[in-house]
């Protein structure tokens, strides 16, 4: 059974259907949370909540026929940036990896990335400049395509690609021999 499309749900949500909007929220809550975490650290949850509320109230401005996902993530990213700017404790921006061990089933299927490697990687991400960290969060944490990433950043595709490339170069330099190209 095919899920209801974003466009259909948006049509219904625009008329005030909270249930339809809730389906959209559930569809995008996790990647939105990951994106906001990448930008605003511990403020992520509040940022995502605010973003969804604003999205719902701005639905009347959404252009029919355009893609909902980059539009939503633009609002999420804006909210997260606002949170980041207003934060007083820099430490709460620091990203962490979960400490609990993986289940056996997950471990068997997962790529060969050790927990220590994740911690070194997240430490390197924490050292990125804000604009580099943001493009990494859009592309890899939220799972957006390159073109969607460019749309959220309001920049040409080439600009988004080069920014991402520079961010990855910084990470490779920080991680040294540990990563492949």
């Amino acid at each position, binding site marked *: *059974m*095919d*899920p*209801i499309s974003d466009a*259909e*749900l948006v*049509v*219904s949500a625009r*008329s*005030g*259907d*909270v*249930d*339809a*909007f*809730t*389906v959209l*929220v*559930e569809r995008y809550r996790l990647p939105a*949370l*990951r994106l*906001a*975490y*990448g930008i605003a650290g*511990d403020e*992520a*949850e509040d940022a*995502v*909540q605010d973003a*969804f*509320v604003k999205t*719902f*109230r701005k639905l009347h401005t959404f252009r029919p026929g355009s893609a909902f996902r980059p539009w939503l993530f633009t609002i999420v990213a804006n909210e997260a940036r606002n949170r980041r700017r207003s934060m007083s404790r820099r430490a709460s921006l620091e*990203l*962490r*990896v*979960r*400490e609990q061990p993986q289940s056996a089933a997950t471990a068997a299927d*997962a*790529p*060969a*990335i050790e927990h220590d*490697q*994740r911690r070194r*990687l*997240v430490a390197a*991400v924490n050292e990125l400049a804000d604009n580099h960290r943001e493009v*990494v969060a859009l592309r*890899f*944490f*939220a*799972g957006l395509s390159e073109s969607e990433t460019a749309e959220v950043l309001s920049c040409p595709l080439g600009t988004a690609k080069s920014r991402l490339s520079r961010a*990855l170069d910084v*990470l490779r330099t920080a*991680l040294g*021999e*540990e*990563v*492949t*190209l």
Partner: protein
Amino acid sequence: MIDLELALADLAEHLDHPASEHSAAELRRRLVAPVRGRRDFRPSTRALLVAAAVCAVVATGVVAIAPARQAVADWLGIGAVEIRRSDLPPGAAPSTTSKSSASTVPGATGPVRTATAARRLAAARKVARFTIVTPSLASAGALADVEIDHRVPGGLVALTYERFTLLEIATDPTEPPPLAKLVPGSTPVQRVTVSGRPGLWIAEAHEIGYIDRSGRFESDTVRRSGPVLLWERDGVTYRIEGLRSLEDAQAVAATLS
């Protein structure tokens, strides 16, 4: 040696980001909450918009769904039903409209609130496109609030009493919405007669799903609703929400005039 892009994708799965179990319920409360500072978005209007999505099952969709759902689908096909759902767990079930009414008249209690509701009822009766009925049963309690929304095709009126909420919804049968709500067959649904008209009693908190234009049904595993008595009469769909017993709900319905 690790592939950096794969490692970043893997990292996304292992980030220790906050994820409160209560965030979904909290978000829903905010979505239906009053919007301050915008005259065109009054609290009552927002609450009603949530309540207002009126559904009519497309005939082909009814055919396509499972028999266990047929009873509900049949009924939905002849009337309209509001789709607001409570975030409260099964067994809690009070009307969310009751909550919103408290904020609609800040600080108002007892006679003050009742007088305000009476004025709103009189105003609603002047503009509604159908005859608004009210229960005459003393045990219904005082009328706490009245809300009307003209943006719902045909109009919608919500009457909030102390013990329950009564919604009266008229629909434009020529313009069905693109999505419809449907109670899954796993939820006990009792066919009942309400003042001589066919209706439904959904005694338990129940799940909600959607039917698209092609008749496909997709369950929404997040939203649930409490006990509801539904029936239709003369082009108006009535819904009583918040009473735990069918007998109580039918008693209220029998006195509507």
